[in-house]
């Protein structure tokens, strides 16, 4: 029953699964994002307070959620790699870091563009914005630490430790709008209770969220293939793998 789980520790198996999954994940992402964009930009009604500026939610919120989700995946993979010494865990963590950093940057820049017309400023040292900026710095720290060692195995371990310790920032980002007075609005969809949006606005947002998740899966598959190849360059299975 658990065979499939144990196989996830095998680099050739992970390489093959990633190669097979990637086109399906990318196709699903394209469909979900296309629906989300069309419905969100053209058919969702304007917000009664923010007008059409609210439409920035369709990229800002999925980007922000993904910046946290990718971090959780990176931290979990790092913990698995540290505890069980599974090399694939380091490959998944190394593959996730630049993707997560790009989503954190997306959340910050799109949030800044939304903040200007709503708050009158591109930036404020608000708890949500500041903790998201710290998340971006942690991603950059994890990537820098990995490449700072001549011995890649030591770099992997150091980066994994920082990723696991840095997970403490994830609940701070999410609950910052609850714990402190914040300019930033509260949770819209990721919260207990019903989402505070009508269906015509909510469905495109959920579709964009799904699309971004699938997109992360697709890019992760490609990057994991590269990371596994870099770590297993001399292995016998690589000859067959790079032919295909």
């Amino acid at each position, binding site marked *: 029953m658990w065979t499939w789980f144990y196989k996830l520790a095998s680099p050739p198996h992970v390489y093959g699964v990633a190669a097979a999954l990637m086109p399906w994940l990318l196709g699903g992402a394209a469909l979900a994002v296309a629906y989300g964009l069309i419905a969100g930009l053209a058919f969702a009604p304007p917000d009664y307070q923010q007008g*059409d500026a609210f439409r920035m939610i369709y990229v800002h919120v999925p980007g922000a959620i993904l910046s946290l989700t990718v971090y959780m995946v990176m931290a979990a993979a790092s913990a698995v790699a540290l505890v069980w010494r599974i090399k694939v865990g380091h490959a998944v963590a190394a593959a996730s870091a630049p993707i997560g950093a790009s989503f954190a940057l997306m959340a910050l820049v799109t949030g800044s563009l939304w903040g200007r017309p709503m708050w009158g400023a591109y930036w404020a040292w608000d708890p949500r914005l500041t903790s998201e900026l710290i998340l971006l710095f942690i991603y950059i720290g994890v990537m820098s630490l990995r490449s700072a060692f001549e011995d890649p195995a030591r770099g992997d371990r150091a980066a994994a430790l920082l990723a696991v310790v840095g997970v403490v920032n994830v609940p701070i980002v999410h609950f910052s709008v609850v714990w402190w007075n914040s300019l930033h609005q509260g949770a819209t969809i990721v919260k207990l209770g019903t989402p505070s949006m009508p269906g015509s606005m909510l469905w495109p947002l959920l579709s964009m969220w799904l699309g971004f998740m699938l997109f992360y899966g697709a890019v992760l598959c490609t990057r994991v293939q590269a*990371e596994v190849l870099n770590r297993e360059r001399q292995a016998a299975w690589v000859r067959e793998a790079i032919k295909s």
Partner: protein
Amino acid sequence: MMSNFWSMGGYARYVWPCFGFAGAVLAWNLWAARRLLAGARLRSARALAMAASDAR
């Protein structure tokens, strides 16, 4: 009708750059991942070729 859409109720200068930046981030992710994989394949092929020539 179309000009209303593009003007985004007067918020066009914020809405379109916001979507443009998000699109650029997604495109960069795809491009960078494919480039990384192509580089890894090339390095693996070179390593295998060197190992084969050493064996001979």
